[in-house]
């Protein structure tokens, strides 16, 4: 546990002590439009082969965190103004998304963002854009995706805009897989999907994690499901990490339970709910 001791030097501590860390985000600050301060010093780590959940209510800054890692921020007039991001020991916060994808970091955006007028298979093929590979290897990569998502194989020639929400989520994940990433930033895969489909998708995520050794950083509002599949979790509130710990611990934590179970009956949380909650109780980091 000597590594754990060094890790405490840069809080918060994580389970990265026992495995090599793939991704580390160190105290980043993000500003949109030069004035809107959204992330106020977020730090987190993802260890090799883990699923790490990034939890929090609407507007907490989950998507912003993922986008600062994949550098999709600039397209939205956002900017990382402080802190560093490292992938496998290299600074990556000045790299373009294209360079990151080539290094093996790929984001699946919130709301799936399939190419609606392209077929499912064409969607998958665009995922391999950064890899200049032969036709044979491309076909093999496709088969690998179809192996995990047999449903996509059936729907391969359908226009993706006309497939179901679950199928679109699968397409989006499959498309990212085509880039052969070692780390996927997965933003709200459960959004708007029936519980059964959510389970199906999370099972596949776990499968990819164990069989393909893909590490995941998973932003979710669906706290309880995410914690069941994740190894570790961070809770974001208002642009700050307010709590982190291993998934089991978080899932049984009374505060987490109260917060999320209390609101789970109200359906999707709104910003008002969050404010209400914050008046009631504050997390202590």
């Amino acid at each position, binding site marked *: 546990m000597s590594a754990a001791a060094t890790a405490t030097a840069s809080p918060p501590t994580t389970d990265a002590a026992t495995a090599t860390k793939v991704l580390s985000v160190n105290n980043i600050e993000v500003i949109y439009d030069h004035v809107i301060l959204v992330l106020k010093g977020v730090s987190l780590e993802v260890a090799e082969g883990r699923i790490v959940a990034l939890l929090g209510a609407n507007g907490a800054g989950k998507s912003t965190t993922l986008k600062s890692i994949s550098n*999709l921020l600039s397209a939205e007039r956002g900017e990382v103004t402080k802190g560093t991001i490292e992938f496998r020991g290299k600074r990556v916060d000045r790299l373009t998304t294209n360079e990151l*994808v080539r290094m093996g970091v790929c984001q*699946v955006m919130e709301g799936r963002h399939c*190419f609606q*007028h392209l077929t499912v298979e064409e969607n998958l093929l665009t995922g391999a854009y950064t890899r200049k590979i032969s036709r044979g290897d491309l076909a093999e990569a496709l088969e690998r995706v179809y192996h995990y998502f047999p449903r996509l194989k059936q729907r391969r020639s359908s226009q993706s805009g006309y497939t179901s*929400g679950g199928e679109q989520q699968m397409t989006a994940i499959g498309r990212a897989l085509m880039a052969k990433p070692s780390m996927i930033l997965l933003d709200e895969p459960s959004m708007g999907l029936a519980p059964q489909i959510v389970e199906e998708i999370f099972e596949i995520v776990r499968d990819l994690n164990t069989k393909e050794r893909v590490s995941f950083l998973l932003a979710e509002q669906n706290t309880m499901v995410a914690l069941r599949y994740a190894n570790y979790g961070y809770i974001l509130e208002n642009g700050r990490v307010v709590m982190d710990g291993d998934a089991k611990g978080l899932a049984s934590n009374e505060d987490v339970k109260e917060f999320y179970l209390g609101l789970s009956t109200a359906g999707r949380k709104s910003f008002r709910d969050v404010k209400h909650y914050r008046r009631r109780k504050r997390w202590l980091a």
Partner: protein
Amino acid sequence: MSFFFEVLIGGLLSGVMYSLVALGFVLIYKASGVFNFAQGAMVFLAALTFVGLREMGIDFWIAFVITLGVMVVLGLLTERIVLRPLVNQPQITLFMATIGLTFVIEGVAQLVWDSQPHNLDLGIQDVPLPWISDSTGMNISTFDITAAGIAAVLVTSLALFFSRTRIGRALRAVADDHQAALAVGIPLQHIWGIVWAVAGFVALVAGMLWGARNGVQFSLTFLALKALPVLILGGFESVPGAIVGGLIIGAAEKLAEVYIGPMVGGGIEGWFPYVLALLFLLVRPEGLFGEKHIDRV
């Protein structure tokens, strides 16, 4: 009856040339959401450069390749100097920028070459095809048929490029969803550069055909305006729309000129397409082939 078909076919064939100009618009609009007002000026520049090189005694294919080079470089420069700094700006800003670009291109073209009208000879004669006039009595121009053939080849190869190649798929992906394209690692600027270069190529083909038919002169720049009704009819985002729209406008204006023209004193060819487009706007504002927005989530 054979006169009707003669007019119809003549109209369709000249419509093919409208399609070519409209195609240049569609490519850029689809991929980057920019309505490129400078497309007409690009056609003019291409035709003027080509004819200028030819008049210097340069071989046909060498002149073609040099002009293509000029158009591709122009496309890449436009993307880099004009559009890249304006990324994330409202569409109207980008549109204004292309209007500015139009004047720059027109000015430079006439500075480098001159503003005299030139004749461009592609070696294709504008005479009736003998075997058609012998067998059916209709006069169909060899030039029109050849131009249509060239346009068909161009469109088919573009279609194959879009559906079969890695870059082509990336182009369509960018057209569909910029953000998602970025996320999978497609470099947008790279793709926009390619689109402008392809649009430059299309402008070159259009410029050569139009130049050979009507002479290379400043009025070529007004082609951009002629493409407008075609785009309204076909939909701004649709390649098949540009083609079918061009054919319809071409045929309609010729038929109107011949059959309605005499009733109102003639000369309606110039404005009839706009009336047609306006009427069409009332019925189907997204155009014949305008892409439907898929609302399913």
